[in-house]
C-alpha cells in the first residue's frame, strides 16, 4: 500500500512541471507569437518542417548532453558533421554500398570524438581547448579530398533518408525519435548513464567510488562524435551533397539546446527530455522567423535574447526551489 501511494506522490510531486515548466512556457509563448502573426505556423506541415530542421541539431545535442553532463564541452561537433558528409561522399565514390558507408561514417565520427576524449583525458587538457583545436583541424580536413569543392552524393537510399516518409512521418523524424528513446534510456536507466551523472557531479568522489572517469570521458566524447556523424548523414542527405562549410556553427546551437533544456554547464544535472525541448525552441525560432522573412541578422539577435531569457527563467525557478 505504502508503495502505491508513494509512487502516486512521487508522480504528483515529480518535479516534471517544475523541471521543464520554464522551457515549456517559453516554447508555448513562442508558438503563440508566431501563430498569431502567421496562421500557417500552426499547420501540421509546418510542424513537420520544424522537426526536419531541428533534426540535425537535436541529434548533435543528444551527444552534447552527455558531454555537458560530465562538465565538459565539445566544440568540434559542427566540424565533425561536415567531415561525416565528406567521408560518406568519398566512400560512395569509391564504390561502397549504403550499409558499409553508414558504418564507415559512424566509425569516422567515433574516431574523431575518441581523439577529443583521449587528448582531454590522457593529456589532462581542458576539453574546451582540445575541441577548439580539433574544430579547426576537422574543418580543415573536410576540404582535403576535394580541395574545398563540394562533393555530390547520388546513392538513392542515402538520399531517401532526407526526403522519404514512412507511416506518414518523414524518415528523418523517425530517426530523431528513435535516437531520443535510445539516449534517454541510456542516460536514465543504465549504469553508464548513472556514472556520467556521478562523475559530472563530483569527479573526485566518482574516482574514489571506483568509476574509471578517464575511460568514461573517452566513451562520452566518442558518443558525441557518433551523434555528430549521424547529424552529418541527415544533413548531407537533405543537401544531396557534402559541403565543406556544412554544420558551421551548429556546435553552438547544440550547446544552446542542451543548456536551454536545463543541463547544468557545471555538470551532474540534466536530461535528454530537456535537450529535445531545447532543440525544439531553437527550431521554432528559426522556422518562425524564416516564415516571417525576418532578416538573418535580426534572427541572430532575437535568438540570443530568447536563450538568455529561457536560461534566466530556468535559473530563477531552480533558485526558488532551493
Amino acid at each position: 500500500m505504502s508503495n502505491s501511494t508513494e509512487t502516486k506522490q512521487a508522480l504528483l510531486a515529480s518535479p516534471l512541471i517544475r523541471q521543464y515548466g520554464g522551457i515549456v512556457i517559453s516554447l508555448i509563448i513562442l508558438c503563440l507569437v508566431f501563430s498569431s502573426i502567421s496562421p500557417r505556423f500552426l499547420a501540421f506541415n509546418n510542424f513537420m518542417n520544424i522537426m526536419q530542421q531541428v533534426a540535425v541539431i537535436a541529434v548533435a545535442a543528444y551527444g552534447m548532453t552527455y558531454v555537458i553532463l560530465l562538465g565538459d564541452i565539445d566544440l568540434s561537433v559542427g566540424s565533425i558533421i561536415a567531415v561525416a558528409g565528406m567521408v560518406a561522399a568519398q566512400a560512395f565514390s569509391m564504390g561502397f554500398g549504403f550499409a558499409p558507408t553508414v558504418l564507415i561514417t559512424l566509425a569516422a565520427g567515433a574516431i574523431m570524438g575518441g581523439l577529443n576524449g583521449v587528448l582531454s583525458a590522457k593529456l589532462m587538457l581542458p576539453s574546451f581547448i582540445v575541441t577548439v583545436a580539433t574544430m579547426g583541424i576537422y574543418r580543415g580536413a573536410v576540404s582535403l579530398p576535394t580541395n574545398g569543392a563540394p562533393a555530390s552524393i547520388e546513392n538513392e537510399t542515402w538520399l531517401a533518408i532526407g526526403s522519404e516518409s514512412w507511416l506518414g512521418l518523414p524518415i528523418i523524424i523517425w530517426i530523431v525519435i528513435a535516437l531520443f528513446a535510445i539516449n534517454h534510456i541510456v542516460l536514465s536507466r543504465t549504469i553508464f548513464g548513472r556514472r556520467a551523472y556521478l562523475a559530472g557531479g563530483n569527479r573526485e568522489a566518482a574516482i574514489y567510488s571506483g568509476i574509471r572517469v578517464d575511460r568514461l570521458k573517452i566513451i562520452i566524447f566518442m558518443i558525441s562524435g557518433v551523434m555528430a556523424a549521424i547529424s552529418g548523414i541527415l544533413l548531407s542527405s537533405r543537401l544531396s551533397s557534402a559541403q565543406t562549410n556544412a554544420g558551421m556553427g551548429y556546435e553552438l546551437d547544440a550547446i544552446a539546446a542542451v543548456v536551454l533544456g536545463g543541463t547544468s554547464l557545471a555538470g551532474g544535472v540534466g536530461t535528454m527530455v530537456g535537450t529535445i525541448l531545447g532543440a525544439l525552441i531553437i527550431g521554432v525560432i528559426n522556422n518562425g522567423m524564416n516564415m516571417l522573412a525576418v532578416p538573418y541578422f535580426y534572427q541572430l539577435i532575437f535568438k540570443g535574447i530568447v536563450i538568455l531569457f529561457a536560461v534566466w527563467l530556468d535559473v530563477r525557478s531552480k533558485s526558488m526551489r532551493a
Partner: protein
Amino acid sequence: MAVSSNAPVLEIKDVAKTFGPVTALKRMNLSVRPGRVHTLLGENGAGKSTLMKILVGLFQPTSGSIMLRGEPYAPKNPIEAKALGLSIVFQELSLCRNLSVAENILATHEPNRFGFINERDLNAQAAQIVQDLGLPVNVRTKVGDLSIAQRQLVEIAKGLSRPADVVILDEPTSSLSDSEAEILFTIIERLKAKGTAIIYISHRMEEIMRISDDITVIRDGSFVATTEKQNTSIEGLIALMVGREMKDIYPPRLVERPSSAVPPVLAVENLSETGKFENVSLDVRPGEVVGLFGLIGSGRSDVMKALFGFGQPAGTIRLNGVPVHLRSPADAIRHGIAFVTENRKEEGLVLQHSVERNINMVALGQLAGQFGFTRPARERAAAKTEVLRLAIKTASIDTPAGSLSGGNQQKIVIAKWLQTRPKILILDEPTRGVDVGAKFEIYRIIRELAAAGTAILMVSSELPEVLGLSDRLVIMHDKRVAKTLDAQGLSPETVMTYAAGIHQ
C-alpha cells in the same frame, strides 16, 4: 576600553529565528565576557550555525535583542559585522585556492591606492599578521599548495587580520593535528590577554575542557545552561547536550577480539613509495580494528591511499595470503576493500544528488540487472535499508545529500561502502566534524561491522577515539612505522611519544 572586565561585551537575549514554518532557533541566550573563551556546545542541528549567521549579519533574528558593548547590534552583512568588531573564522574553508596566503588574509581590505593593490605592502602586512600569530606559513604561497591543516591556520589568520572585540572560532581544530592545535591555543591565550572575547565552537570535549572559561550548552534551538568550566565535567556536558546520560562514549566490543592465531585478511609488507612512506608493514585480521595513528605529515594518509589502488608503491600487499596488485580504486573495490574518505564533500558525496543516488554510488554494478540496466526498485529498497540500518536522519531518500547535517552525510558515505559488503574497511577520520550523538552511532556501526568479521583499519587524529576503538595501534612517525602496540591499557602519553619521534 570603556567596558569593565566583568560586563559582557556581547549579550544575546531571547533571540529566535524562524524560516517560514521552520524554527531554527527557539530561544537563545548568551552572555560573552571580554578576555574569556566561551564555548558553545550542541549537536549538529542544535542551532549553532544559525546563531553564528545572525551574529555575522547573514540572517536577521525574528525576535530578541543583541547588544555589543552595551549598544544594539544588528549588522546587515559580514563586512559590517567585522567593522563593528566581530570576526568569524569559518569551519568550512572560505579561502580562494588560486590566490596567495597574503591575498587571502587581507581580502576585502587590501592596502591600495585608487584601487591598485600595493603588492609589497600586502605581503608585508600579511607577513606581520602571520608572524604575530606564530604561524609556520609563507605568505606568498598559493593557498591551493597548502595542506588542509595549514589552510585552516590561514583561515584563522584571515579572521584575526583586523582587531576585533569578539572572535568566533567555528570548529577551528577539526583539521588540525595536535601540534598545530597547540599553535592555535597559544593564539587564543594571546587574544585573551588582550581582552578579546572568544566564542569557541568544537565537538572535541578534551580541548573544550582545556581552553574554555565558560560553556553554554544548546539543544534543539534553545539555550540549556551556561556554566563555568570548573563546575562541570565531560560526562555532565554530554548529558546536557544530548538530553540523556551517555555512560560510555566508546561502546564495548560485541564479541571477543580475534586471537593472534587467526591469519590476517590484509597483510602489508615493506610498502614504500618515494617521498611518501617507507617500509610500512602492518596487518589486519577479520573482526579486528587496527588504528593507524600519526601526526599530519607522518604519511598515514598516503599509506591508506596506496591500499586503495592509488600510486605504485613497492613492496607487497597480501589479501588472504595472496599477493595482489592494486592498480586503481576499481581494482581495490573488486578485491573487497572499501575506503571511507576524509573529506565527505570533496571525495565522498555528490552533494546535489539524492541520498539514494549517493548510497548506491559504489554498488551500482552489483545492484544492476542485465545489459547494464539499472533496477530502480531494487536501488530504492537497498537505499531504504541502509537509511534504517544506520539511522540516517533524512526527510526521504530523494532529498539532496547536501542538505543533510554533517553527521548524516558521513553516515551516507559509510552506507555507500557497506553496500559493497567489504571484507576490509578503511576509515579515514570517520568522525571529523560530526556531533557527539552521530559519533556514538558511528562507533556503534564500527563495532557491529567488526563483530560481523570485517577487518577495519582506522585513521583518526583524535587519540582518545583511536585508543577507545582499536584492538591494536600502528603508530607512524616521519613516513615510517614507529611502533605497533596492543591498544589494551595503552596510555595516550605513550602513543604520543612514539608519534612525535621521541621514542626510537
